[in-house]
């Protein structure tokens, strides 16, 4: 499996979810567990560019795939991805626990073409719960990042 551009050869229990593989076996704990049942979105990662709930995917199913987690977003010089910066600018979190999942999902939402309007963003980001309820700020952040990503 390639994770954030790096190849990992992992020997795993075939019951291990991709989420647990990332957190417990690779040491990438940026991806969060909020339910383990596909109900909260905290574990969202990109697999071959598409957003996936990593708690609902066995690690072994992803052999040979390219997984991107929140740790893989910043560029080599450590400068933030426009989505990360937009989340900071718009205070799109409080506790920050849902945030990695929100950010990955937001990037997926834009690349799917579901960030055309505020209503679209609200709808297509509704799989990512934020109990701190930063929703209006999350929408504002996605609008900001969308425009910057388009310009880039």
């Amino acid at each position: 499996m390639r994770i954030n551009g790096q190849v990992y050869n992992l020997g795993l229990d075939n019951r291990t979810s991709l989420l647990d593989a990332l957190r417990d076996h690779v040491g990438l704990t940026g991806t969060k567990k909020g339910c383990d049942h596909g109900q909260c979105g905290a574990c969202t990662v990109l697999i071959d560019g598409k957003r996936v709930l990593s708690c609902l995917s066995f690690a072994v199913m992803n052999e040979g795939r390219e997984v991107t987690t929140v740790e893989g977003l910043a560029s080599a010089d450590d400068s933030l991805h426009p989505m990360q910066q937009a989340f900071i600018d718009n205070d799109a979190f409080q506790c920050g626990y849902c945030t990695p999942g929100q950010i990955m999902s937001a990037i997926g939402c834009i690349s799917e073409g579901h960030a055309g309007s505020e209503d679209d963003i609200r709808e297509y980001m509704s799989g990512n719960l934020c109990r701190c309820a930063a929703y209006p700020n999350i929408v504002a952040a996605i609008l900001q990042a969308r425009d910057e990503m388009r310009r880039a």
Partner: protein
Amino acid sequence: MNQAAPAPKENMGNPIPRVDAGLKVTGQAGYPADLAVANVAYGVLATSNIAKGRISALRLDKARAMPGVLDIVSVGDMDGVDKPKFGNTGASSIGPLHDRTIFHDGQIIALVVAETFEAAEEGAMQISADYTQETPSASFDSAGAEMEPAAGKSPLFKEDVNAGDFEAAYSTAAVKIDQTYSTPTQHHNPIELFSTTAMWQGDKLTIYEPSQNVTGWKIELARQLNIDPVNVRIVSPYIGGAFGSKGPMTARTAIVAVAARRVRRPVRCVVSRMQAFNTQTYRAETRHRIRIGAGKDGRITAFAHEGWEVTSRPDPYVVGGTSATGRMYDYGSVLTRVSLVHADRNTPGYMRSPPETPYVYALENAMDEMAVALGMDPVQFRRINEPQKEPIGGKPFSSRSLINCYDQAAEAFGWSTRDPAVGSMRDGDWLVGMGCATAIYPTAAAPCAARVRLTADGQVRVQCGSHEIGTGVRTVAAQMAAERLGVDIDKVAVEMGDSALPPAPVSGGSISTASVCSAVLKACEAVREKLFVAAAGNDGPLAGSGNAKLDMTNEKVVTETGKSAKLADVFKAMQIGAIEEYAEFAPNGSSPEALKKLYAGQAEFHGGDQDKDSVKYAFGAEFVEVRINSYTREIRVPRMVGAFAAGRIMNTRTARSQLMGGMIWGIGQALHEATEIDQRHARYVNRDLQDYLVPVNADIKAVDVILVPEVDHEVNPAGVKGLGELGNVGTAAAVASAVYHATGRRIRDLPIRIDDLIT
């Protein structure tokens, strides 16, 4: 600047981005279950599937035989460990592995420890038990539920109130209502799962666990394990949402510590979402009867609020929100009574504005009904009953900007465009309703310690054992230090969430900003004092400036007359490299033991209705527009406006976010949240995030937060009123008021669902 960063008004600090924002958007913020631990074993809980009875046989053999299972801790394995205590730091007196009694559904019966999470999970599934069952009492109306008066059962709820002659005033009132209201069971459901990681090094125990009270837990855990508190350390650097759920320590912490001691390696137990519903606390269901009598002029002459709350069989958990509702308006007479109903349930606990959310909901819904009965505008009705002094003890408010909040929120909302006639406003297929309600939250503070170090290069380190649960307390502590020590905020590092740091009170009751900032302020003042003495001293760079008032800015000590000395030069004159000060803050009126109690993990709260001279509350006014589809009765909330006054606002960005989050919580309380209970089995039915509804992004549109300037020097040295729990008070009543306005349906039992509105 964007919406997230409102321009500061009078007595408000800058909307500086959170100091930990970079860590949070890159996945580097370490929540307790993220912290790497070498050679860790995994623990998974097994829980009971009955609510009342005794375990007659526990079958562990199959689990023990599972590959990878290392050990099982179960009933009878807690020798030498004291039972948990119910109280400020302990969630419940139930020690699930101390005896075979089952007090509630989903009670812990064992912890399976294995090499891997998968093996532990599979092991836990293999555990079964035989029980002698009894019929459980699920809630208020169940056979066997026991009712008792709440007064005196908890140190937090001393007595009911009988001020003035309610009965006489009510019986002669020209206009009156007598109604009942109810709120459902709710679970906090922070997105971070609950977890405990325990590791021993010799006789020293370290716990990684999301906690709102690291000092309290250290003391309580040491008591349970019969070890010296100096050997216990609780580490909780970032907390993934709390809302009260991580305030009291549960029985799990000691169980995981025991397991780690037995297997001689660290054990990490992450509790499943489903098991958390029964092994953590929650907001219990409440019922209310409210009677209000008023003259034709709208002046209230009689107010009675009776409340009933569910708690567990053994523990008298009470919220008793009549303290706030009884002081809200200028009632001529006040009568309150709170009762507890014991059922076979896990013990409830604090959940965001524990007393105010249910009680003020009931009061404000009743106020709206009264306004209708009087034929009066609901804002005007509140204006008429605005008190000069609180009506129970006759004490003044240290400050009260409620009417100001109403004025500003009403204006921003466009309240004047509302046609008061029920069902009169429509937009195509949608019925439009507008409603409002008051928010109130007591302002308190508790003793707190902090250590501040300033070095010659202008670096500042603030240490305080408080907790970053998402409120931004790290950021406001950094702001306070940066402001007082005249350095850029980037030069301030804040350490929190560790019981090895100077103790802070539980992060509950919206006291953190006031308590932490007051302690940090005090430590900074001591640092300043030392620097000023040195700077103006004979050998100092500002020698000869006499008694001129000094200040610090831009890494300089400056005089009123414009002279200045670089920090580095003052330190040079002092021939030292750093100044470190440890300060202990105790609010006015604290008992002589208050600081001692702080170190013992007990927070002595001051403020609210507790002080002699005045009562202290923060207020707000919330306006909501609902749209109800005339065919499907779908309920939407396209916009809401809240105006809040809470003394000094340290940071308009974090303040707005907290209030906004609170208002959205209020939407959840009004329209979504309810833990459903199977009455036959006293069992929660919807124990996951699919069926326990919380607001999602698509439920929320425009949320406008107005910060109303307010200065209050009486509350605490920082002048800060807490606001983390203010935003969600009143919202549900505002929604109920708007639903009534749209449809003519008065819904008194939360949540308001489509089926309540279908004819």
